[in-house]
């Protein structure tokens, strides 16, 4: 088989006209939502409120409402945090890194992926705050000048988290908004309802599609892409420091930063695929977000999944190679101890099942890939669970060994975070274009004159 890498992939299965594109993409904003939409929204928002109820309960009684104990001081809270931060990685990777690499297939999925990033960071950011014993004092983590000359402890990875996650959130949000400005202008021009028009007018910042606007926009977009790129790598690196900088066997490991970044991209892509598979069907966008797109993402999932698998192997190898009995014990215990079930869930979901993506048929089959990416989502949650809980439950002194049993509230908050995420996604699909209209137009046939005359 001969491959011509000079050529882009086929971007559309059925080449649309420009007007059709606008109509199709802004249809959810132009029409009233169906009953199904409201049922979906009611479902997700009830989950969300369930979560908030559980959080309220925790605020009132204390972290004791969770399953955590003196030995296993972190449980679901931090697991969820790392999980959601991981999910948040795909969006910026797609929108920034693939942009800089001129991967034009990204245009169709970038907006949606970015939105998911923002929502995932919102979910993630919730956890560090609610998991503290006294959340009302969480502000102590922020460096602010005060009369007592008290600063946060700048050598604590938890404090780096604060900076990393808040920076990431800010930059991602601005980047996303920047890309949205031309689309808001299109929506403003289409809007018939006065209030709608007013809102879109406000957010489109007076965009007139002028040449000068476009030039400035492109530049700004490039700069943001440049800014966001290192963040993609840094955020999860910093999150991994939470563990790597500790002395706990099973945490204290130099492999963590690259392993976490790979894992984050892995889980992020899996989540994007999960959502896109549903979204393209519901909004009739199968021609724009094509199987080709999904296949590419599946390839990335395969790649990063294998990287994660390599990291698992490396962890085990290093713990043996280190000659430190405590490390060795933790590695063996992980695979064969109390949490073996969680560990093997992780390994099978993250390493074994993605291997099916070696087969083109699987990569291009919607039901099969949906199953695999769902499993990856589960696996990646368990990966963090295993890292946190199984390492803590068998630490240095056998006298403090114990077992972690999550409480109902733990599950409530986990479910609530999914509720929050999908509620935000649902609201997003009805208020903003899920595909960047301005960008997608840039890859329609003939939109970009090229030296080979645009023929492919």
């Amino acid at each position, binding site marked *: 088989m001969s491959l011509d890498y000079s050529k882009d992939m086929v971007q559309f299965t059925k080449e649309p006209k420009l007007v059709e594109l606008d109509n199709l993409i802004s249809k959810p904003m132009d029409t009233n939502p169906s009953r199904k939409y409201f049922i979906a929204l009611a479902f997700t928002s009830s989950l969300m409120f369930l979560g908030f109820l559980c959080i309220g309960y925790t605020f009132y009684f*204390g972290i004791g409402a969770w399953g*955590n104990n003196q030995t296993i*001081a972190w449980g679901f809270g931090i697991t969820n945090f790392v999980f959601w931060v991981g999910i948040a990685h795909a969006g910026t990777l797609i929108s920034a890194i693939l942009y800089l690499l001129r991967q034009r297939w990204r245009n169709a999925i970038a907006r949606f992926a970015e939105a998911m990033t923002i929502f995932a960071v919102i979910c993630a950011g919730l956890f560090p705050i609610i998991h503290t014993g*006294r959340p009302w004092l969480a502000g102590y983590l922020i460096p602010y000048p005060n009369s007592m000359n008290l600063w946060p402890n700048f050598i604590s990875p938890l404090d780096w988290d604060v900076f990393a996650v808040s920076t990431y959130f800010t930059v991602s949000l601005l980047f996303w908004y920047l890309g949205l400005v031309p689309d808001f202008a299109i929506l403003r021009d289409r809007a018939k309802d006065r209030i709608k028009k007013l809102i879109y007018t406000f957010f489109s910042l007076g965009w007139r599609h002028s040449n000068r606007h476009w030039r400035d926009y492109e530049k700004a977009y490039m700069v943001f892409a440049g800014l966001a790129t290192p963040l993609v790598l840094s955020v999860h690196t910093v999150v991994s420091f939470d563990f790597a900088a*500790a002395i706990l066997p099973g945490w204290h490991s130099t492999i963590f930063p690259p392993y976490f970044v790979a894992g984050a991209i892995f889980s992020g892509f899996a989540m994007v695929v999960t959502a896109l598979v549903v979204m393209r069907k519901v909004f009739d966008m199968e021609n724009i977000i094509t199987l080709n797109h999904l296949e590419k993402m599946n390839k990335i999932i395969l790649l990063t999944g294998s990287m994660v698998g390599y990291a698992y192997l490396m962890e085990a190898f290093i713990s043996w190679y280190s000659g430190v009995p405590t490390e060795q014990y933790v590695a063996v215990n992980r695979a064969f101890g109390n949490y073996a079930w969680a560990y093997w869930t992780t390994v099978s979901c993250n390493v074994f099942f993605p291997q099916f993506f070696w087969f083109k048929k699987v990569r291009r089959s919607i039901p099969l890939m949906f199953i695999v990416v769902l499993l990856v989502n589960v696996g990646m949650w368990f990966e963090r669970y295993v890292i946190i809980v199984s390492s803590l439950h068998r630490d*240095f002194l*056998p*006298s403090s060994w114990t077992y972690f049993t999550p409480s109902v509230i733990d599950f409530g908050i986990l479910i609530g975070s999914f509720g929050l995420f999908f509620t935000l996604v649902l609201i997003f699909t009805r208020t903003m274009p899920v595909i960047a209209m301005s960008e997608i137009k840039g890859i329609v046939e003939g939109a970009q004159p090229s030296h080979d005359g645009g023929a492919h």
Partner: protein
Amino acid sequence: MVENIDNKNMELERDPNYWQGFFSIQKDPEFDKAKRNEEKKISDNDNSGLSRRKFLALVGASAALAGVGCADYRDKGEIMPYNKMPEEISLGNPTFYASTCNLCSNSCGILVRTREGRPIKIDGNPEHTVSKGKICARGQASILDLYDPDRLQNPLRKTKEGKFIKTTWDSANKEFFKVLESAQGQIAVITHQINSPTTKKLLDDFKKKYPTTKIYTYELFNDSIRNKAWKKCYGTDFYPIIKWNEAKVIVSLEADFLGNDGNKIENARLFAEGRDVENIKNFSRLYVAEANMSLTGINADYRLKVKPELQYEFVMSLLNELNRRDNLELPISVSNFSLKTFAKNNNIKEDLLKHLINDLITYKGKSIVFAGRSLPEETQIAVNLLNEVLGNNNLYNSSESFISNSELNSLDDFNKLVSEMNSGNIFAVIHFDSNPVYHLPENMGYKNALKKVGTVVTLTESANETSVKSNLVFAINHQLESWGDAKTRTGFYSLQQPVISPLFNTRQKEAVLLNWIKVENENYTEKMYHSYLMDNWKTNIYPSLNSKIEFTRFWYGALNDGVVTTNEKEKAKFSFDKKLLNSLSTSPKKSDGYTVIVKESYVLGDGRQANNGWLQELPNPMIQSVWDNYASISIETAKNLSVKNNDKISIDTGNGKKEYPIFIQPGATNNTITIDSGYGRTTIGKVGEGTGFSISGLMSNQPKFTPWIFTDAKVSKANGTYTIVTDQEAHLFEKTPSENIFAQRGILVEGTVNEYKKYPYFLKEEKGKGNHKSPEIYPEQKELYNGVKWGMAIDLNKCIGCSECIVACNAENNVPIVGKEQMEKDRRMQWLRIDKYYSGSYDEPIVSSQPMLCQQCDDAPCENVCPVAATTHTSDGLNQMVYNRCVGTRYCANNCPYKVRRFNYFDFRDHFKDGYQKEEVFDLVYNPEVSVRSRGVMEKCTFCIQRIMEEKASAIRENRGIIGSNVKTACQESCPTNAIKFGDINAKDSVFAKYRNHKLGYYALEGVNTKPNVTYIAKLRNTHTEES
């Protein structure tokens, strides 16, 4: 009057003119100039600290500031100064009172720390002849009983409907006095053992006044069998005190002398004196032969599993073997007992017995064989004989002996009492701070017999099983609210004085009785018993002391010391009566079937203090269980019964089936079941009710073997389970991959005495290569701690794992009670724990104890991960917690390799039993020097930093340097064996430095390189090793 003055002052401060005047003066340039001159003068004159003028100026300024600063302060009027300042109190400083603990028959001397008139901690009285400044966990925890919200606060009267209603002392007394006067028959007074000569006299007076009175005395656990056997052998009343410290070989037969058999505080101290690594030549060896693992068994060098009914055979076999080896001229024939057969039948290694025989012969006269109090008379006599023929009576203390004020009544006496009660001969029963319904064997029928008694009254601190069957309940004082005295040994008296006036509408139990005696001619006053006590001393005790000091002065001096030493001298001679030996059986008895042993609980004793959360939460030293008792059985027995941990079994000792959950105890003898006392209280209070299972159903009013051991019990599996919560997971015997995990990780390092004698540095390097240090890859940081640097050393040779220190720490540091379900979730709050590690096999385990507390690491892993710098290092080497800054991320706890950090998952004070710890009276127990932590905050041991600060303050006041040895941590103070040393690491000449730099010193998890400031002195086991 005082109130008026206060109001006036406040008005003065609020007077607006006052302020205007003040400011205008301040702004006046002339005034400024004058002030500067004044200041100059002051500073010229200022030679040492404050001058009078500066002082006055400061007082003025601070009054003004207080006026401004406090004007808006919302919390008004709660904090009240003393109206009349008591002479002996200086605010902010503790005052100590010597007194006597009354909770068991040992009557240890206590020193009560009070702050602003409220007792906050109980320590041992260093002046006390026996306890020598130490006090057991129960004694320490009794401070909590004082402030127990569940205490009875008023006398109660039972209504016709059977409800208890509050009544007044007058009407209750009147009601009962009418009954007493009617004198329709016998009066029975049921009491625990009386240690006080004055209480004894009081009871005699009561008998005089009401001649039909009979006093019945009981203790659930007592030494009566051992004493009776002793009397038969030697003619004196009490088994002697043993000089454990002088023994080279100790053989303990079913005797938990370090745990609950005898005066454990004294025994532990003397035992530890004989296990001093500084005196390695005289290091004693401990053999223990017992049915179930006990605290003594944990500390044994050699442990044998022997069923209690076979102990007799064991002793006789020993005698036979010794006789064979070393003609002992035995007065009786022991030829039917063969040690070999015994070893074979009981699966005991012959090597071990060989060592034992050799040791007993080698150390004749320097060894002691000690039979537990629960063993029958025959065994006791055999043991006395064994000691006699080996010449071990050297180790009996001949200059001191026990003394008793009241003889214990036998079970038969109580059986008779019950039948008298049933036949209606007894018209009044007075429970004098006793709880026979709970304590006496269920099949005695005491509870039902009470129904036949005209009037039942109970004097008690809190409602109990007996008080609910009474017509009148008299609420009595706690021991810290009472007067008293005690005499338990020859040579000294100890005194008990109240340190706080009664918190509730209660009276001292003796005063209640006294009131009944004197009812015609004297009204009750609070001083009543006080003067009775003084009179008794003046007329009966003081003259015998031949003191040259006038009585009142003598009395105050005695109260101050808490102890009065006398010139009494015991010169006991031990002459063995050989005639009685003919009654000993001459051939071994068989034993199959299950044997049930009831044992005094280490933490709860006989259950009097079951409502004490500190004790309930104090881990049982065997399996670290909390809040419950259980049937402790061996793994083999569990297999035979096909039960696993928490499954219930039913036990029938002849009085019907009783169900208990089981827990497998490594090292337990097969077919024996051991159950602790003190649990299963049905009436006591929120904390104690519903914890564990009562043993009174197992006990019998006519025991066949001994009152505490029941042979041939019927045991079977029962339905259902009951969760026993342990503080430490029960996975101690994971074979792989944690085998030898302790040595590998450097948690526990142990050696043998012989090894140490031969290579003193065996711990530090390979044998015989001299002392050298392994190269250090990290740079030294010596310059960091130039001044005082605090450190602790724990001698694991002396630590017996008794857990007294945990209660001391709870009391000192305001550690909350969390409750069973939180313990189950592993949210214990104790800052100090005693880790127990079992190694070897399930059948013959070796147990190691290790107190684990914050190691105050120089390179503390917790410090660098805290995002808000809430845990930091002090310049004197402490790892401190800043509670106010703590946000509660718990990262520090995750990163602590010792897992000694404790997180407040709830406001446990509120969460436990619906805010039981938030009741008003409970607040009084808190040490005001230690903040009470809120929920969401991390906490941990800081080496009693408040005590360090006290020393710092006095160093500044006295203008001297800080002296490390002046600070004693709470755990150190309470340690009965002085295993914990504390002091300044940089004071190179101190006693502490010797331990800090000991040859046997090591750090826990040294490989993690946290550089701890707690040094463990490695445990040496005195076994026969190849080196010898």
